[in-house]
């Protein structure tokens, strides 16, 4: 069975849980930016948790089904329509052969996950079906979808039910306003003054329109002031530059000291910008659901809080599994 792409949306890509293990040689993790929502979509349609789905950002695609199927859309409030009739998000529903799945305007969040029973069956590249568009690797021909593409779909599990729903408290979406992203200061934190460090956590930032799968850029906070230094070999004279180093997933670089960028699933793995710290793993999914101009605060945490948050996120996933399997 196949799905015909009538309209691709803005940047719809095939994603699974990603491609860990190659970041040290420059190939990023890739995979869904909101992994919790991706897993939920798969479980709703009876797939393995890490089956390949479509990640649609800000705008849904228009898809024609060539066979009967069961689908579920999770993540952002990107209201699905089947032959123009509204359907619910976070709920599995049947699609008949020849029907067209389209979407209304985005209401909330940023990325919708479209799971189809059987999963999107593109070739596995380095252990994953995820698209890394910048490297033309994986996914559907290494790129975002285009009109006219035909997506292969795998065989659905025998017992796929429609009308299954993920309860509100298991969706793991951001609730606080402004959204709070917990950060462990570190890496090159010593490069900025104490006052600048306090401002970084006190200011309210806004998601910049440039934010994408590579990195989420924020603006609107005060520029960081640097501690004077003698530039080390290879760092150059800009105080925000360092001798080239590895960039962790979730690390926050601040080129020129002005606009922090949180590196996400398709990030480059190294370079010469200093980093003030790292967004904790438990909050990385939330970033994937931030629209441009959303107000955000960075909240300082230590290792104990980061580990507790990771445990609580894992427990949420456990409850989701229990509810759906």
């Amino acid at each position, binding site marked *: 069975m196949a799905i015909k792409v009538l309209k691709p949306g*803005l940047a719809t890509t095939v994603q699974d849980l990603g491609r860990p293990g190659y970041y040290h040689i420059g190939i990023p993790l890739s995979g869904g930016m909101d992994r919790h929502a991706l897993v939920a979509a798969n479980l709703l349609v009876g797939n393995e948790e890490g089956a390949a789905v479509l990640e649609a950002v*800000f705008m849904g695609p228009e898809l024609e089904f060539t066979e009967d199927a069961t689908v579920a859309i999770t993540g952002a409030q990107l209201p699905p329509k089947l032959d123009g009739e509204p359907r619910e998000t976070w709920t599995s529903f049947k699609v008949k052969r020849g029907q067209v799945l389209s979407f209304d*305007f985005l209401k909330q969040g*940023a990325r919708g996950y479209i799971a189809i029973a059987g999963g999107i069956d593109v070739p596995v590249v380095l252990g994953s079906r995820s698209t890394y568009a910048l490297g033309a690797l994986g996914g559907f021909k290494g790129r975002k979808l285009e009109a006219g593409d035909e997506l292969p779909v795998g065989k659905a599990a025998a017992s796929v039910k429609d009308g299954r729903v993920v309860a509100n408290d298991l969706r793991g979406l951001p609730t606080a306003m402004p959204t709070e992203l917990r950060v462990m200061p570190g890496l090159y934190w010593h490069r900025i003054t104490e006052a600048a460090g306090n401002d970084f956590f006190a200011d309210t930032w806004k998601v910049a329109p440039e934010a*994408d799968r590579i990195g989420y850029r924020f603006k609107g906070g005060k520029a960081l002031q640097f501690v004077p230094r003698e530039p080390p070999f290879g760092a150059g004279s800009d105080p925000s530059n360092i001798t080239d180093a590895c960039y962790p997933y979730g690390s926050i670089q601040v080129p020129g000291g002005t606009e922090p960028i949180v590196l996400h699933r398709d990030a480059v793995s190294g370079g010469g910008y200093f980093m003030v710290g790292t967004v904790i793993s438990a909050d990385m999914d939330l970033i994937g659901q931030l*629209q441009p101009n959303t107000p955000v605060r960075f909240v300082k945490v230590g290792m104990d809080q980061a580990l507790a948050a990771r445990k609580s996120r894992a427990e949420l996933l456990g409850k989701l599994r229990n509810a759906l399997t």
Partner: protein
Amino acid sequence: MTTQQIFSPLPGIFYRRPAPDKPAYKNDGDVVADSDTIGLIEVMKSFNEVKAGTTGKILRFLAENEEAVMAGQPIAEIDV
């Protein structure tokens, strides 16, 4: 004559001009055709054209140049 609204398909920054030194695509009172571009939405380092999607006369723009807009936000009113 009925009034219709043109909605932003995306969240981002709305521009009424193709480039800072160019005139606006359309102005209040202009007649537009279905496939005419009335503005751009900047998001994820790309500029996406907003089409009129209908034929008629623009009554007025509801969003300012360089305004941050949400998906589904009305950006112009059009008499069809």
